[in-house]
């Protein structure tokens, strides 16, 4: 059973619930994906399916050869399976995989921040803004002691490259799945910029659907 799908981040918006509270949702254009390869424990050592997403205009020879008559796909990603695959190459996966209330994990490439200082990268407080300070406003402060031990501890948080790495957000609730337009509405934020590629997987942890909150029985003075 396939538990994941590929998607593209469209953007964020908000929805009003009946009670009048706002739910912040991310809109993801997910699927339809095509199974482009099947991997089995017998042959490759593990069970997985490879999914293709988004039509591509041009691909190089080896990629075309790999896809055969399935069409050309811009993105290929593998999804691990617990048991032997029960689908064949060419099988289509779409958002009907998910129901409202399901929990999903979403992986994507976070926005690149370039070479970032410690204030931005590690939430350091920086130095004092006044009292004769110069050039110390966003400095990291002391990074170690003196002659003993004579070196800087490994792994100390310093300035460096930030973002542009794979990030997974776990247990986002599916608010709505729209198979007609291939849209998924997820509660909360997902990694990356708009148009970024996302891998959406069913969470291992699935919480039972919350019972409907008891609504206040009140006189409604007519709408």
């Amino acid at each position: 059973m396939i538990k994941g799908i590929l998607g593209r981040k469209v953007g964020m918006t908000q929805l009003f619930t009946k009670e009048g509270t706002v739910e912040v949702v991310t809109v993801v254009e997910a699927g339809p994906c095509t199974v482009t390869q099947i991997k089995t424990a017998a042959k490759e050592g593990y069970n997985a399916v490879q999914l293709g997403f988004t039509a591509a205009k041009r691909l190089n020879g080896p990629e075309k050869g790999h896809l055969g008559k399935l069409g050309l796909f811009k993105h290929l990603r593998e999804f691990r399976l617990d048991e032997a695959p029960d689908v064949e190459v060419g099988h289509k996966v779409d958002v009907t995989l998910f129901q409202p209330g399901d929990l999903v994990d979403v992986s994507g490439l976070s926005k690149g921040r370039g070479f970032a200082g410690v204030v931005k990268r590690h939430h350091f407080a920086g130095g004092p803004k006044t009292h004769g300070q110069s050039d110390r406003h966003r400095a990291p402060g002391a990074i170690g002691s003196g002659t003993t031990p004579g070196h800087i501890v490994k792994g100390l948080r310093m300035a460096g490259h930030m973002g542009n790495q794979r990030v997974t957000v776990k247990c986002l609730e599916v608010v709505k799945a729209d198979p007609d337009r291939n849209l998924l509405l997820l509660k909360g934020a997902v990694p990356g910029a708009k148009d970024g590629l996302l891998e959406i997987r069913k969470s291992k942890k699935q919480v039972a659907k919350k019972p409907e909150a008891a609504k206040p029985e009140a006189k409604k003075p007519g709408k």
Partner: protein
Amino acid sequence: MDIKTVVETKVNENIPKINPGDTVKVKMKIIEGDQERSQTFEGVAIRVRRSGAGANFTLRKVFHGVGVERTFPFNSPRLEKVEVLRYGKVRRAKLHYLRQLSGKMARQKVKSKSKDELR
């Protein structure tokens, strides 16, 4: 694919068009304990954001000498009734300058339009 074309924002048809400077009366359902009742707020619209699902307008009034501002989302299901009492004549989109004015100065900035426009 753009977010604005994907999720259509339903326009709340019960709400009339509000422009900055208008005096507006809003009736809103609020939950008090386990009771539901409606509350009215009347004030001058000092800003209107019409874009997207989060479109809102802010009303300002002076209550017991204290300036009170409240922002209402156009799409909130809690809005019961919105009514424009007076159409204001202003030359700005955001009337934040009203915060610095008090008494007659604040009032003079909001002039009524001609009677036929009022309907």
